């Protein structure tokens, strides 16, 4: 039942070529922009953790988080708000498909999107920006990005409960993410002693950026998995699931 539902969600998604295009090429576009801005510079001193690494080694994973968050959180919240307003979610609730099963397949769809997106971003990073893949990178990326994808999908579902209608969705969703994106070191590394960084570490974006950076950092020894950062995402994921399960609305707001 769920595999069939997943299949049709995927069909529906990939047949909307423009939507898919921007999902996968936005991070590539940012890679090109930042790659030319910081061509071959050494990473700023805030990243000096026992040796110098190229800035590319920082911004590729950072841009990767941007892609994953917009594919899972931003787009999912906007998509669900649109589907709710159009009455499509109400249709789901008029069928015997359990609501949790539907949301579960929605999260699986996001994981599939994320896998494709990460593949493209890392390939472009490796081919054009001299991204180095340390031995621990593969496993660490699977763990970090997998957990992040589920977490940000869950947050996308939870935030949909707070979105009154589809018109308001982009403003609300971006209004929350964009400030966090800047204070979480997505576009430039921030000193860990800065006040902004301290604020950001209470939210899920910075832990994702830090964990992705560590997963690809050749100077890190061991698994490359920052369990502290991963744990922060897991806590956010649990919070989002509780809110999502309790508050998610399937029907458009009543008119009049």
């Amino acid at each position, binding site marked *: 039942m769920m595999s069939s539902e997943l299949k*049709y969600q995927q*069909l529906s998604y990939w*047949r*909307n070529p423009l939507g898919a295009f921007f999902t996968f090429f936005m991070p590539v576009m940012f890679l090109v922009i930042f790659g030319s801005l910081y061509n071959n510079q050494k990473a700023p001193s805030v990243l000096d953790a026992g040796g110098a690494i190229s800035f590319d080694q920082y911004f590729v994973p950072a841009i990767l988080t941007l892609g994953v968050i917009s594919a899972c959180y931003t787009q999912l919240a906007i998509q669900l708000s649109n589907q709710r307003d159009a*009455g*499509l979610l109400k*249709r789901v609730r*008029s069928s*015997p498909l359990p609501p949790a099963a539907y949301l579960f397949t929605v999260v699986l769809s996001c994981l599939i999107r994320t896998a494709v997106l990460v593949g493209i971003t890392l390939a472009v990073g490796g081919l054009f920006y001299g991204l180095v893949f340390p031995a621990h990178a593969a496993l660490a990326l699977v763990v970090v990005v997998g957990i992040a994808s589920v977490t940000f999908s869950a947050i996308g579902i939870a935030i949909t409960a707070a979105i009154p209608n589809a018109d308001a969705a982009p403003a609300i969703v971006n209004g929350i993410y964009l400030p966090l994106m800047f204070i979480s070191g997505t576009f430039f590394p921030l000193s860990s002693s800065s006040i902004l960084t301290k604020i950001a570490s209470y939210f899920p974006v910075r832990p994702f950026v830090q964990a992705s950076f560590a997963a690809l950092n050749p100077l890190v020894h061991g698994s490359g998995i920052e369990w502290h950062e991963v744990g922060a995402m897991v806590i956010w994921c649990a919070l989002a699931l509780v809110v999502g399960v309790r508050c998610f609305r399937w029907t458009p707001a009543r008119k009049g």
Partner: protein
Amino acid sequence: MTAAIAVAGLQKRFGEVHAVSGVDLEVPAGTVFALLGPNGAGKTTTVEILEGFLDRDAGDVHVLGLDPAKDRRALLERVGIVLQETAVEPFLTVRETLARRAVLYPHPRRPDEVIETIGLEEKAAARVRSLSGGQQRRLDLGLGLIGDPEVLFLDEPTTGFDPNARREAWDVVKRLASEGRTILLTTHYMDEAQALADQVAVIARGQIVALGTPSSIGGRNTGATTVRFLLPAGLKGLGELPVPTAALDVALADSPDGPLVEIVTTAPTGLLQGITSWAVERQIELEGLEVTRPSLEDVYLEITSDSGTAGVS
């Protein structure tokens, strides 16, 4: 006959607005029941409680013996729901849309069979976004049928259709009814209720104000009948007609074809006998002769005219 749908003392409030205040209704299995009423009368609220979308404040509700508020999951496998506004995934084909839904039911109908029922054979492989509004609505109806439901809820199924599309949709509904399904329909079209329903209930201000068959509701079958004909040439006035003007409601109205006699009576048989034999004796042809009972629409307007609307649909 057992009742497929039974509602007693149903109440629902939204804030200060009493959307439904004490509705009772019973729909026997295998019949078509139409719920008529102005916008905001409580039609959709009632139906959405039956479908389990809304919780009720008070009353007993059973659909196929199940309580929609408690046994919704089990109920959803046995009912089909066609909501008021059409919503279908644009990027799937007609067949895919139906197949996606079919796997969710224990005993679904085959998608191709449903496609035939809704008359979309030529569009089976077309993307939904390429369909016209009427075709999308029929696909929406198909989604309500795919689970082979015992009870089908149709909330204003033909609103916004052109006359042809409405006739086609009616044919589909009639076919479904002939298969023995129970259908609960809401509509504001009187002709739709007349064409499809075995029973009609008029709902206004959250209450059922009239209940009956389409031809008897509101005393249509026993109420006043109007006899009309053009005043025969040469007659000067009503006094020359063989009609006891004192006893009946007789009037002369203007019409483009000349003065029109209108007689309202509760005993049209004797009246017609008197008038027609009088005319035949004199070899007068009564031009424009017609005998009409109040239309369902007349009855509806009369029933609902003194009822304001509550502002909730």
